[in-house]
């Protein structure tokens, strides 16, 4: 087979002869055309064309099926039948998605009627905000593009997820974004990178942050929430998650395709940028990727998208939208597939406005050029829509129509280049996989002793896992739209860390909190515990910010190395079990999610996989403005109390990592007890009993207390003997342990008796107070000082951790 010169297509499309090919020939064809289809998939396609269509496929059809069946679009690993051997014994899992996500959500939805207003089907999951409006959230990854072109990869990563929201329901309004990155350590020596053309983590970080900045800021969507993880395992394959939340009238959530509608494309033009992005992201990276796959990375133009967004939102408000979706992975082919594969219809590729001449049929149909939305509208609405497009200076093109045939027909210059009957083309074959996981028993505490606790606290505060993200946060406009009530950096000093962010929503008295968590370090030894604790931390961050714990919905985003490696797949299975157990205990449904596989890189020394990474993000409803609660000390003379129980286990902690101790037992989580205490905290917040609340996470109590003190409003005095604990933890574990479900709160003494009534005695205790006598952070044990440091000095270390590198 020869690849034609892209500039001068001899013809728009070709027929590919597959009928007589042997399995090896089919495999070679898949490889030559970069279809990313397995031999089993190709046999299925061969069978379809031989028995159902009785002809040979066109290249357009093969490319279209390859996109549809790609891991990126179809999530075939989450649908696979997996024979798993783990701590629970041997079992067969008929679909990770069905078993640990969908069914969990369905059970929770039964107990909370009317809360989830849409999940798994549309572009994003929706929950009820009030009687009139819903909020929705979607998080996507853009890992491979960001690895080879950090700025453009991250830029279009955010641009893409914003379009998901614009295409959610009949067009939701984007109101806030988040971004989460996993990078190699920015201080790594270039000589330690063991492959050519891999971009140094500093270059990745700077490019990615600027990419997100330039898209989000220009779109006028505040980037309010985020996280950065640094670990050597992300050097070759960084992770870039971008999420956007939206708001929409409840009546505009439901959309139904039907025959007799016009199909219009709005926004950017179609070009050769972004060809085969979906299949590209379903393969592993290697040095060649940096040369060969540049074409798969798209070019972003946020102003094009801003104009399209203004158009879409006005069209929806005017009742002119019947159906809408974005052009994401797969371009027109996936948008048309979503809209026309059931009702049927015609699409005319020659009508699509192009960036360059001479594009072949499949290039137009599959291009992932950015900033394009596809709508189905009544023909009678076209004049009004054209006027709107002129108002917002965006291009509107009539590219086809729906009918009642049930067949998707794609035309190019009068020729039928693709004809797919979805009812007869079966779904991609279910994959058969096997996985295993052995939990190694960890030991607590060894090698963690320490003489200089002030020094260790300083090291923790300046560690990449804990230090201030201020240099990044300030590059994002997190105030545009004027609704960011709880900002990522706040408190009396304006630069102290918060747990979740909260935005008010126009037309509602209720607000939305956005929070997130990921704990890849835990997953290295105990992925199931990681799954549980990640859900817990996300819940907790939302609750402390003021969200009602019974009105929280979650999103799951997984990034995995090589799923064909049974141990890596086993870690994913265990992670899924963990998130499912916790979500069910918390009654927090998963309403959307995404997975990304093949996050490994072939170096000369062998493949380097990322650790199994699970991002849990969430949206929670904050019922009143007065519930919004910051994580910074407000004044001297308050009491400090802890909700939740401390313990001796130091596995997965930042402290253990900086001491070079790995494989320790990770802390245990009791989700039922945790949910009870979260409800207690929420009750207390609703009654105005809590001045400030901060979750105790990376770096433990000492870091949480220091961070709370960074508003510099008072000194903090904490008695470690008063800390509720199980298993008599050592001082180091009390200070730096990362037992989940714990919250540090500031309260007025007058509120204490009411608060005590809300909590079980084993899980709540006053441990200290804030003082006007000094501006220090002091911990005592048995009356003796064990850690005493000036808050200003600690804050300096915390603020400077990332400053040198960004």
């Amino acid at each position: 087979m020869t690849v034609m010169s892209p500039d001068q297509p001899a013809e728009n499309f070709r027929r590919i002869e597959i009928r007589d090919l042997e399995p090896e020939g089919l495999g070679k064809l898949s490889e030559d055309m970069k279809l990313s289809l397995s031999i089993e998939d190709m046999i299925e396609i061969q069978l379809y064309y031989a028995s159902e269509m009785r002809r040979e496929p066109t290249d357009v059809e093969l490319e279209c099926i390859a996109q549809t069946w790609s891991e990126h679009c179809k999530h075939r690993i989450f649908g696979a039948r997996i024979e798993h051997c783990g701590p629970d014994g041997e079992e067969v899992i008929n679909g990770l998605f069905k078993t640990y996500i969908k069914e969990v959500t369905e059970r929770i939805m039964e107990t909370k009627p009317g809360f989830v207003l849409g999940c798994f089907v549309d572009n994003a999951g929706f929950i009820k905000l009030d009687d009139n409006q819903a909020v929705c959230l979607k998080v996507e990854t853009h890992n491979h593009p960001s690895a080879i072109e950090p700025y453009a990869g991250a830029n279009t990563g955010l641009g893409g997820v914003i379009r998901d929201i614009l295409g959610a329901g009949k067009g939701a309004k984007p109101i806030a974004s988040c971004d989460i990155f996993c990078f190699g350590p920015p201080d790594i020596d270039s000589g330690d990178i063991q492959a050519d053309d891999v971009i140094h983590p500093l270059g990745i970080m700077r490019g990615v942050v600027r990419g997100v900045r330039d898209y989000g800021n220009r779109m006028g969507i505040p980037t309010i929430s985020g996280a950065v993880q640094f670990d050597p395992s992300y050097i070759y394959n960084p992770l870039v998650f971008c999420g956007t939340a939206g708001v929409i009238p409840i009546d505009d959530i439901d959309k139904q395709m039907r025959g007799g509608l016009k199909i219009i494309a709005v926004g950017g033009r179609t070009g050769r940028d972004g060809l085969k992005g979906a299949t590209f992201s379903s393969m592993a990276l290697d040095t060649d990727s940096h040369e060969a796959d540049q074409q798969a990375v798209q070019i972003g133009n946020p102003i094009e998208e801003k104009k399209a967004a203004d158009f879409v939102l006005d069209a929806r408000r005017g009742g002119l939208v019947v159906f809408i979706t974005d052009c994401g992975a797969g371009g027109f082919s996936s948008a048309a597939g979503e809209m026309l594969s059931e009702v049927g219809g015609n699409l005319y590729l020659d009508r699509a406005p192009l960036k360059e001449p001479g594009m072949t049929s499949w290039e137009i149909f599959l291009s992932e050029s950015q900033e394009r939305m596809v709508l189905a509208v009544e023909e009678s609405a076209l004049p009004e829509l054209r006027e709107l497009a002129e108002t917002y200076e965006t291009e509107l093109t009539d590219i086809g129509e729906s009918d009642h045939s049930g067949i998707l027909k794609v035309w190019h210059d009068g020729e039928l280049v693709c004809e797919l009957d979805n009812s007869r083309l079966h779904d991609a074959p279910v994959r058969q996989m096997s996985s295993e996981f052995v939990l190694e028993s960890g030991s607590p505490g060894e090698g963690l002793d320490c003489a200089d606790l002030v020094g260790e606290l300083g090291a923790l505060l300046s560690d990449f896992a804990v230090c201030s993200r201020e240099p990044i946060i300030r590059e994002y406009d997190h105030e545009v739209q004027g609704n960011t009530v709880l900002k990522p950096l706040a408190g009396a000093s304006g630069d102290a860390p918060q747990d979740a962010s909260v935005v008010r929503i126009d037309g509602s008295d209720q607000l939305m909190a956005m929070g997130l968590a990921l704990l890849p370090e835990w997953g290295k030894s105990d992925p199931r515990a990681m799954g549980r604790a990640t859900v817990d931390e996300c819940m907790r961050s939302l609750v402390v910010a003021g969200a009602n714990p019974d009105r929280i919905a979650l999103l799951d985003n997984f990034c995995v190395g090589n799923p064909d490696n049974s141990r890596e797949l086993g870690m994913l299975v265990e992670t899924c079990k963990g998130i499912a157990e916790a979500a069910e205990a918390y009654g927090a449904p998963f309403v959307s999610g995404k997975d990304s596989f093949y996050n490994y890189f072939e170096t000369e020394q062998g493949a380097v996989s990322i650790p199994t990474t699970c991002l849990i993000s969430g949206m929670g409803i904050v019922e009143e403005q007065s519930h919004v609660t910051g994580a910074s000390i407000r004044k001297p003379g308050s009491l400090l109390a802890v909700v939740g129980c401390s313990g001796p286990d130091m596995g997965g902690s930042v402290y253990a990592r900086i001491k070079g101790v790995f494989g320790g037992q990770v802390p245990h989580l009791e989700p039922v007890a945790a949910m009870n205490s979260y409800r207690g905290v929420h009750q207390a917040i609703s009654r105005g009993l809590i001045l400030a609340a901060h979750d105790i996470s990376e770096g433990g109590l000492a870091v949480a207390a220091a961070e709370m003190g960074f508003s510099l409003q008072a000194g903090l005095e904490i008695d470690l003997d008063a800390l509720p604990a199980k298993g008599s933890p050592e001082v180091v574990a009390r200070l730096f342990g990362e037992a989940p479900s714990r919250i540090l709160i500031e309260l007025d003494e007058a509120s204490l008796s009411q608060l005590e009534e809300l909590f079980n005695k084993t899980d709540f205790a006053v441990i200290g107070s804030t003082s006007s006598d000094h501006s220090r952070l002091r911990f005592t044990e048995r009356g003796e000082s064990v850690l005493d440091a000036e808050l200003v000095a600690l804050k300096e270390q915390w603020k400077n951790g990332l400053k040198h590198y960004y």
Partner: protein
Amino acid sequence: MEERPKALLLKFPGTNCDSETARALEAAGFVAEVLPISRANETVLEAAHLVVFSGGFSYGDYVMAGRLAQLEAERKLGDSLMRFRDNGGYLLGICNGFQILTKLGFLPRGSLINNTSGRFICRWAGLKREVSGNPFLKGLPESFELPVAHAEGRFIAPDGDAQDYLGRGLVALTYTSDINGSSSAIAGLADETGRVLGLMPHPERFLWASNHYDPDWRGDGSEWGWGYMMFKSIHDTIAAEIAGHSP
């Protein structure tokens, strides 16, 4: 019933603070209309008392910030904007709008260029009101805070002119600390008449007290933030003029 003053906000492709700015104008008592520039012509300003250029990235600001918006505004509005000002109309430019008004030549000569840090900055800034009696600022205390968010907010003037602007009362607002390298820490400029104001900070983002980063911020004790006071000042000025002209 009293006539409510009318504010017209001109929106360019890439303008993105129009909704919250219109919301703030409405809260202060204006009837606010957002008009996409594609629909503008020489007559659209006739009914307006205040014309607003809001924040955002007009045309992406890929050329100098505000440059393409200036050209398009001139093409669409001709000299009607100048006539509007000469006939007693008020002009407000916020952030990108300040850049556009500067390019249009409605404010003292100068340019808004990249911050000295070379970075976008999103933070709150302390501000000092350098003039008294400016119709946009008269309800504000001498020092107050507003959020800023810009990459090209560093105002530079031809040699020595910034000091001259200060002396002539054209500098309406200065930063209390150097956040972007502006000459004489200029944050906002007025024209000779005081009826045109351009500023980099975003008053529309501090409409309510709850917009402040400090949960204990109390301002003047009301539910409003300083940004509201700015819109209220210009509203009350115009409302008084309208009342004065009424029979």
